[in-house]
């Protein structure tokens, strides 16, 4: 449990750095999806308490982890897939229009 929160911070920072500096659009989408995965890891980590069991109570347990962040994370996972699909469709559309994947080139060609 010691390394989890620094790892989450490092993952979010790396994803945003990739979004800021990379030129290829698909690579920017990869950065965004890594940030989303880090947030899912955060939702899993703040629900965990030591020696807790999973919230599926087929018999009475003493300590159970928090089920609410897990439900929210389940919502987040499905929405990630939808947004990724929409972004990829936009990339295909932009490539058909401008014949390039470089975002600086597209910014120059516009107008």
């Amino acid at each position: 449990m010691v390394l989890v929160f620094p790892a989450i911070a490092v993952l979010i920072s790396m994803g945003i750095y990739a979004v800021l500096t990379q030129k290829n659009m698909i690579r920017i989408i990869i950065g965004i999806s890594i940030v989303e995965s880090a947030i899912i890891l955060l939702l899993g980590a703040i629900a965990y308490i030591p020696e807790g069991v999973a919230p599926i109570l087929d018999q009475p347990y003493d300590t159970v982890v928090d089920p609410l962040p897990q439900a929210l994370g389940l919502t987040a996972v499905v929405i990630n897939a939808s947004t990724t699909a929409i972004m990829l469709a936009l990339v295909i559309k932009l490539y058909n229009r401008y014949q390039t994947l470089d975002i600086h080139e597209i910014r120059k060609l516009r107008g």
Partner: protein
Amino acid sequence: MIEIILMLLILLLVASAAIALFSKKLLNSIITLSIFSALLVIILIIFQAPDLALAEAVIAAGITTSFFIITINKTEGVK
């Protein structure tokens, strides 16, 4: 004992994220993203969140890779 496994998994997770973000070729990044999701699934299992792990395994390790690969194939075959 499970702490050591968790630390090893998190190191591998950060390493695979670094490969996925800063690799030279685009296809390597997309391929490595599936391993990133698999490591995330194991960490979520250790955190006792089987529902979240199942959704992550289904969507991020399975469907998203096909989306990315068909996008790459469509954006290079136009010329």
